[in-house]
């Protein structure tokens, strides 16, 4: 017993300060690909090399008309090797409540609004949490066919480093106790019914978060004989969290975004 206490005491507090301070993301980390549309001459190579067709040419007559779908992106960085006009940043907090906002074209880089101004994000999250003070968010996680990569990072949220419980957010065992369904995986044919039943067992108001490229769009698996190709084919999704897998900070950012949405929806229920 003494040993246990001594070890805890020596270790001290390890929880990071996110969202007050920026998350410790390595400069080597591969996050959002940034397309320099002004310098983009030919996007065909990048579109061809993308394993998930996250990069597409929107106008076949114009090789520069590139579109990037962050919901499909697995952040492998192959496009940046193929095209000098694409640069991989270490931005990973890319969640959005709007699926279309994850699609970036030269006219619209709507994800810009999310571009990590840590102060603003921290402030926003704090407001949400403060306004929500007194209540908490309970999450039921469902693996609808993921490779287990997303689960590793979701579990990481409960670690002392990220400690999601400090926001009043808990992972619960039963959908009956849950406010949010956090779904990973492309939704396999064999999990579709279980997912629907889990959602049906939740009390309203309820949120659905799609975590990871597979849940957002089917990812590298897409839609095939065994998969549906994304959570929103089955359930209404409130927040999309890109990443392969999204790291704990990206997940946390997504959950906090969705909490804002819950608040705005509450009065009508």
């Amino acid at each position, binding site marked *: 017993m003494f*040993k*246990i206490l001594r*070890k*805890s005491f020596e*270790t001290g507090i390890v929880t990071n300060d996110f969202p007050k301070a920026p998350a*410790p*993301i*390595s400069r*080597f*980390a*591969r996050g959002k690909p940034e397309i320099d549309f002004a310098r983009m001459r030919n996007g065909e190579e990048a579109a061809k*090399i993308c*394993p998930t067709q996250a990069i597409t040419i929107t106008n076949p007559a114009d090789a520069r008309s590139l579109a990037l779908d962050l919901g499909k992106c*697995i*952040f*492998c*960085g*192959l496009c940046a*090797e193929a095209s000098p006009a694409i640069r991989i940043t270490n931005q990973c907090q890319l969640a959005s409540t709007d699926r279309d906002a994850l699609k970036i074209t030269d006219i619209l880089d709507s994800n810009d609004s999310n571009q990590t101004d840590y102060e603003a994000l921290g402030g926003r999250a704090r407001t949400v949490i403060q306004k929500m003070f007194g209540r908490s968010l309970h999450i039921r996680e*469902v*693996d609808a*066919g*993921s*490779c*287990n*990569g*997303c*689960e*590793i*990072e*979701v*579990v*990481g949220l*409960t*670690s002392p*480093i990220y400690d999601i419980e400090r926001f009043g957010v808990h*992972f619960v*065992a*039963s*959908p009956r106790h849950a406010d949010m369904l956090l779904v990973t*995986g*492309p939704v*396999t*044919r*064999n*999990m*579709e*019914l*279980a997912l629907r039943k*889990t959602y049906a067992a939740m009390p309203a108001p309820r949120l659905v978060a799609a975590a990871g490229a*597979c849940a957002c769009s089917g990812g*590298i*698996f897409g*839609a*095939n*004989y*065994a*998969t549906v190709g994304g959570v929103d084919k089955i359930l209404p999704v409130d927040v999309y969290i890109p990443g392969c*897998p999204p*790291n704990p900070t990206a997940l946390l950012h997504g959950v906090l975004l969705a909490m804002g949405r819950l608040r705005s929806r509450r009065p009508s229920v």
Partner: protein
Amino acid sequence: MNPLSSLQNVLNDVSKRYHIAVRVGRTDEIYLRANADVVPGLCAFLHRKWNGRLVNVFAEDRRAQNGKYTVYYQFALDDLHGFFFVEVEVDGKKPELLSLTNAFPSINWQEREIQDWFGINLVGHPNSRRCALHDDWPDIHPMRQDFDLRTKLPPFSGERHHFRKVEGEGVFQVPVGPVHAGIIEPGHFLFSVAGEPILYLQIRLFYTHKATEKLFENMPVDHCVRLAESISGDSSFAHATAFCHAVERSANIEVPERARVMRSICLELERIYNHIADIGAIATDVAFAVANAHAMRLKETVLRLNEQLSGNRLLRGMICPGGVRFDWTGDQAKAASTVLNQLRPDFEEMVDLIQASASTRDRLETTGTLSPQIAHDLGIVGLAGRASGFNHDLRRDFPHAAYGAVQVNVPVYTVGDVYHRMLVRIDEVRESIRVIQHLLARLPSGAIRVKIGELPTDATALGFVEGWRGEIYHWIRTTSGNRLSRCRVKDPSVQNWPAMTEAVQGNIIPDFPVINKSFNLSYSGTDR
């Protein structure tokens, strides 16, 4: 090409007794084509006389080429450092083959998978119910070449599986899953219990089946590497390495030494973070949460190191056919060494907390015991096998990546309980740290990647890697345009799941989570 001299004896011995056609794929990869009637005898001979382990059974649809299916039985001859593939052709119109499950219980699921996916009838299988396709699936065989990947099937209509009945006074059934209480993958477990002890466990998997093997046939090779990373998230690097290994062998390409060392370092990092996470999770499952908090903290440091070394916390995107994609600066290599130096004493203290806790040990010792005999009969591999007397490790017996340049000590125990599966992990973490430090100190300079170019057409090759969970095999056949016509993926979990059924018997249901965690098998790797 001549086989390894150690394998020549086996070849002579086999040729003397059986009528076979020999094809030497590579010096350590030999194909024996035999008629269906001699296959059972030949397999038994390789197993009994030459200690061949039957590690992989799979089929291939060759009807377009010769009107037949081919079924392969892959044997690993660990002491002789070679793989033998027994190849048998099956009629394309009336596909039937004798089941070998009665002689080799370890291939029970793999044979049923062939039955479901290819529609080859395995005659005499002791339990020929559906396995890889659930019972509500229409009558399709998705791995046949003429089945389209994008076929739209009617939605899942509900479970129609008939479980075995377990009856008697006071016996009742406890169904669990596929959605579990924790944050884990989906699978269904049906416990038959009398009072608290478990009489019988039936496991139903393939909930996460997502057409992975079929997808490999529908992508260029460069994309396939990224797909391999998504077979089992916790083994991203190991699966991708096994895949690249197969591609490189098909093209007869040697990976530069620096890249090989970097691959080994990444494989060991993957082993470390998974083992630490599992040790913590085992502690959690017996209510020792403090140890898990430390374990998660340590795991996080390794994940961040992964991110620094590869750009991704799960080491994704790092590997490519022909080498690795990102070189390390001296600072990165030094950072790795520093992190591991700090990790080691911290890890020892965490282990010490667990081992000094009598109540924790009481729950772990003699729980979920898998006897060496059963482990041997079921062909249990990897860390679960090594806790039950299985003295094999591809890193030592079939050196790949840079394992030829470093000695890997393999911990082996014979007790086979949860505690000893944890001990294997503890020993392996220590060993992995030592191996990485050894390799980092001797990180060769030079290129990190060779260009692969166009792959040869219609070449077959085996890729193998000892992942943290056990041995991973990828077997490919190339086709024109840098594509594959078949990619067989064998995760160690496929082999090890039946061990769960044996290990839980007589234990109480509350101990099931910790027994399950002590094996920590991949659902996604099994279901693909």
